[in-house]
């Protein structure tokens, strides 16, 4: 049996345990009395507030019951916020508006366009809408594939859909003017195959500005999820083994040296965008997470050290399963980590970033996208996501323009600040009969996928047999068919069409002049370091061939080598990824 089979069994065993305890609460008087006493203490500690219209409300909504069976069901089956199995929430208070608010707003907006200075300007613009400093970076195609901006045939892609980063100097420009060592600063980077190179550039750039002592203060996330790349997003450079090894090197380096950094964000977003159903998204993402945990353990890492540094990223669309997807994922992760990996509490918590669904947005009558995103945001927050990105309505045709990026960010503020749904009371919805039913059904379906992959030999074996890819493609194909057949209504596309012509909105595109400027900068960098770069690449190659930690070496390599030079060097050592259909 693969690890995944053991995890599915552990969940079944935990559910059986909950059922036993609930039955015991009904029959064992002493146990029932203990539960009631604990319940009374919990209720006493909940403080109260008053809504702006005068209604007194507790800060935490609990089942209104004294029935020990119901109490046991809630405490063990769902858990108090911040307690095992974390279905309710990862932490105790989440979005509550306290007089002294120590938390940060969950809003995190993704930006990346043109050259480093253009994205930097967008960061400064978006920053005016945020209390804390949260910079989330999108990279252009060449950067995502580890290519330099002057690689043959990529010029038109430079700065399109994200920022072009070739060198440590670009990285310095990208974050100019921001104090990255601030306590409330946090940087996230949507970067996968070349994540080790890009994070090394980030560290090197930060050291140039803030000195060598700054590294431990850097806070943020890099995506670096190579399994989902192989399964769905297709940005893979090196063979799978080598990709996982480089990732392992990076995580191993980050755990002791960057205590505030999340070196991997295990992502279902791209799996869902490529076509997966919500259940498939959750099943593949969780199983990928467990695979990383297994690989790190096999390298000798301690689950309680690396566990808290794994983070998750899910898509939130409009399908009904999204009402509970985050809750179910937290619960399954906690049980698997505790009961199969032996993780302590901090390593059991699934920390979740959510993004509203890009696939659900369409070009036709695109202003409807504002509503779609608002509904998805609501679903994401109902799942107590730890952070959230809302898509801009103009995304079907362009990198978000300022107008729609602002509207997207305001949508979050309207839900979280204007509306009273989340700020007065935790857990207003958890435990509703419909949600419980949905959670049970979704959990069951996820476990079925786990067991199917288990029979194929686990996640990596299933991946080699292209199980995840074919499931995702099948689901994507079915989704398109549903749209064309009208079984899946899309307003303005296959239902209630107004016949409005395609909108003409200003597009954020990178001019050829800027693209040429990027190439000129890159060439100047390579020229400047032409003497040192061969030796630096040779050192990197030696470390890679000897099986040493490539990441530690990369922090030096990026000082004198461009992204493309490094990619070419490592490709010589480990070979190229062979794509699957």
């Amino acid at each position, binding site marked *: 049996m693969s690890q995944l089979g053991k995890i599915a069994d552990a969940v079944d065993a935990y559910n059986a345990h909950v059922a036993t305890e609930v039955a015991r609460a009904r029959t064992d008087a002493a146990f029932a009395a203990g539960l009631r006493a604990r319940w009374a203490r919990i209720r006493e500690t909940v403080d109260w507030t008053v809504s702006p219209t005068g209604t007194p409300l507790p800060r935490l909504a609990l089942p209104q019951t004294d029935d020990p069976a119901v109490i046991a069901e809630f405490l063990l089956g769902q858990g108090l916020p911040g307690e095992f199995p974390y279905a309710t929430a990862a932490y105790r208070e989440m979005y509550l508006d306290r007089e002294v608010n120590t938390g940060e707003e969950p809003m995190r907006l993704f930006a990346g366009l043109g050259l480093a200075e253009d994205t930097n300007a967008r960061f400064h613009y978006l920053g005016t809408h945020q209390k804390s400093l949260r910079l989330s970076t999108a990279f*252009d*195609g*060449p950067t*995502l*594939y580890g*290519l330099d901006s002057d690689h*043959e*045939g*990529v*010029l*038109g*892609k*430079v700065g*399109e*859909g994200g920022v072009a980063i070739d060198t440590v100097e670009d990285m310095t420009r990208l974050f100019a003017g921001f104090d990255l060592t601030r306590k409330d600063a946090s940087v996230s980077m949507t970067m996968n195959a070349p994540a080790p190179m890009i994070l090394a550039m980030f560290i090197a750039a930060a050291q140039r500005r803030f000195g060598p002592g700054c590294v431990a203060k850097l806070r943020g996330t890099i995506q670096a999820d190579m399994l989902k*790349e192989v399964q769905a*997003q*297709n*940005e893979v450079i090196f*063979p799978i083994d080598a990709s996982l090894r480089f990732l392992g090197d990076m995580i191993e380096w980050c755990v002791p040296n960057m205590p505030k950094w999340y070196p991997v964000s295990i992502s279902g977003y791209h799996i869902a*965008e*490529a*076509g997966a159903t919500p259940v498939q998204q959750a099943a593949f993402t969780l199983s990928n997470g467990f695979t990383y945990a297994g690989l790190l353990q096999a390298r000798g890492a301690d689950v309680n050290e690396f566990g808290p540094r794994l983070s998750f990223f899910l898509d939130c669309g409009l399908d009904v399963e999204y009402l509970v997807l985050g809750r179910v994922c937290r619960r399954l992760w906690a049980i698997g980590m505790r009961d199969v990996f032996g993780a302590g509490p901090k390593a059991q918590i699934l920390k979740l970033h959510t993004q509203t669904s890009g696939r659900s947005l*369409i*070009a*036709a009558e*695109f202003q409807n996208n504002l509503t779609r995103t608002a509904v998805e945001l609501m679903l994401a927050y109902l799942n107590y996501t730890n952070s959230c990105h809302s898509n801009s309505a103009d995304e*079907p*045709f*362009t*990198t978000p323009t300022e107008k729609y990026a602002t509207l997207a960010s305001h949508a979050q503020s309207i839900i979280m600040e204007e509306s009273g749904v989340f700020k007065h009371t935790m857990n207003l919805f958890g435990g509703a009969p419909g949600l419980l039913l949905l959670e049970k059904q979704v959990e069951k379906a996820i476990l079925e996928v786990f067991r199917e992959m288990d029979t194929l030999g686990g996640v990596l074996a299933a991946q080699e047999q292209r199980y995840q890819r074919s499931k*995702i*493609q099948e689901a*994507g*194909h079915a989704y*398109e068919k549903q749209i*064309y057949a009208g079984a899946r209504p899309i307003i303005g*596309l296959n239902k209630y069409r107004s016949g409005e012509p*395609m909108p*003409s909105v200003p*597009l954020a*595109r990178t001019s050829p002049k800027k693209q040429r400027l990027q190439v000129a900068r890159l060439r100047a960098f390579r020229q400047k370091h032409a003497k040192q770069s061969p030796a630096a690449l040779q050192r990197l190659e030696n470390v890679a061939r000897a099986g040493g930690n490539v990441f530690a070496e990369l922090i030096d390599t990026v000082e004198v080598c461009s992204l493309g030079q490094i990619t070419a060097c490592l490709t010589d050592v*480990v*070979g*190229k*990824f*062979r*794509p*699957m*259909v």
Partner: protein
Amino acid sequence: MAAAHPRPPLRILTAVPLCDGHDSAVTTINIELARHGLEVIYLGYHQSAAAIVRAAIQEDVNVVGLSSYNGGHLVFFKAVVDQLKMRGGGDIPVFGGGGGTITPADERVMRRQGTDRIFFAGTPLDDIMAVIQRDYARVAKPDRKFKGDRALARAITLAESGYPRSKLPAPRSTKVAGHPAFVVGVAGPGGAGKSTLIDELTSRFLRKNPAGRIALLANDPSHPGSGGAILGDRVSAIYSQDDRVFFRSLATRGSLTGLSAAAPAAIKILKNSGAFDLILVESVGVGQESDPFRIYGKGPPLVDATLFVLAPHYGGRIQLQKIALLTGADLVALNKCDHPMAHTARAEIQARLDQNGRGQQLHPTTAAQHFDPGVDALYAALASLSSSHLRPPASRPGSGGAA
């Protein structure tokens, strides 16, 4: 003449541009195209304009369809159209789609620059299919203007559409290899990793023969119902994306022999062109039937040597007895040797080969592993077969002219 035969399937090349991994739309479209009876040569995502143009020419397709989702389409489509013209494929139209990322204003620019058509977001799949079948179904005819790979590719297309063999063009390369091509048939059950192994052998050929050229003929089954096919071997052939590789996909179009009925003619065209040192012909997944490279009866076999590839899950010793090709193959490779069953498999297959009394040695390989020494050894064995085949130095077959 061609008109006497049923209209051959429309051949289309689909791909996603460089630095773009969005393949969800294109895979849906590929399935629909094949369902509508088209032969789809899918090149994959993250493909350069040069690779797309090379494939379009070698595959001699009716049309190229590109699915672009992360920008840069104005530059990219123009590069494809321009390079097609430059390399003798200017008659091959290019269409594209990109959801909402390609705007009507972009489309006007792209059409001016030579892109034939853009399908906008929301175009029903059925409409896309109808337009493609209506506008791109040209029947291939001989064209004297075609040179180099395009001339070879067109000759193969004509052979595929049932052109009489005596009337097939016989293009000759201006740059001749200097000796006849060595032709190797590669067969084995589906899933044994033939395509990957061929690509790894190709990478070794390219490294060891800095001026050499290699041709690959990949036979894949047509769908028995629709007559369409998804010919996806190019996707994972990462080392075969090189101008020194001529790669052609052949759909079987109802042939039950493991090869397209046009394969013998295609082999002859490639061989007689004088352009290649080595030709590898991959059959569809076969095992027990017979030798796909010998069934054409009378004359000499189609190939100079055969390579049989199998993986450890062949189902036991009794099954091995039934595999005719294990008796006749010049080279036998057990691929996927990282599989736990490989140890037993090696012993069983070697015992089976020993029965033949021909001194056949099993080559254990793990083609999925880059730089696998087993593949190195297999390549060395193939190269030595090739050079003993060429000894004593043979005069060039029928060709004159070249240096």
